[in-house]
């Protein structure tokens, strides 16, 4: 296995991870809930939910985060290789898959694993494996 030392950012990634964990901890301590993004966003679309206000506030905070980040440091540059058609297909799969499997990287991956949930471990293994295989096929079989 070749490590990509040029793009490896251990400290920034660890610090960012700790902030994500801190956010999840605040949410659990104060709101008594799991900070699962797909669940919070999906709940907004169910229309029947009587708990819209905090969901909207959470999503607004997440969407507004770049502005707060920008006060302290310039936003890091990003690169999106996927074209429009791929983004549409990927978005549909992520939307359906996270709701069908009751969670994404945050709910199952971070919150679920830290709770020691076997269910979340299985979900995490499923989406990580699918992610590895997909990138392998796109880059090394088709690419």
């Amino acid at each position, binding site marked *: 296995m070749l490590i990509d030392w040029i793009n490896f950012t251990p400290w920034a990634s660890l610090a960012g991870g700790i902030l994500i964990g801190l956010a999840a*901890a605040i949410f659990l301590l104060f709101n008594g809930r799991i900070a699962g993004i797909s669940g919070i966003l999906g709940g907004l679309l169910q229309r029947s939910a009587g708990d819209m206000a*905090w969901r909207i506030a959470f999503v607004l905070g*997440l969407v507004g985060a770049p502005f707060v980040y920008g006060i302290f440091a310039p936003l890091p540059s990003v690169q*999106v290789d996927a074209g429009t058609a791929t*983004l549409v297909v990927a978005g549909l799969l992520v939307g359906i898959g996270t709701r069908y499997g009751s969670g994404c990287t*945050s709910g199952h991956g971070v919150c679920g694993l830290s709770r020691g949930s076997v269910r979340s471990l299985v979900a995490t293994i499923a989406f990580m494996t699918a992610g590895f295989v997909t990138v392998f096929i796109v880059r090394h079989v088709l690419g």
Partner: protein
Amino acid sequence: MHIFTALITGIIFGIGLILSGMTNPAKVTGFLDLAGRWDPSLGLVMGGATLVGLFASRWATGRKQSLTGAVMRVPSATQIDRRLVLGGLTFGVGWGLAGYCPGPALASLASGGAKPLVFVAAMVVGMIVFEALERMSTRRKQTA
């Protein structure tokens, strides 16, 4: 109060995603590319976040109320079924294709141009499609 803490959680979560590199799809696919030049950074994101989460989870175990009196709503489901695995696999394919998962996509909306917008729009449509299918299948079960 809970609306305020939700807003703060969203902001800190988003800053963490940006700092960690999760909002950069090329970095995400670099992590998922085991056979190429592998960037292990995102392993540290998950490790760091899960480690902090461990303390919060320990605190939450057995509690009925949060610090501010909210009812604790920690998931109680334990069954490992087809939905969980198929849902996870479906999500993983989309994640690998674009390099976006739900949180980073939302945190990229305001700063990342048209591409995250396209992804989030499709993701929301996907979630709406899911809700519609769910409603149809419960209706079918009720009439059956």
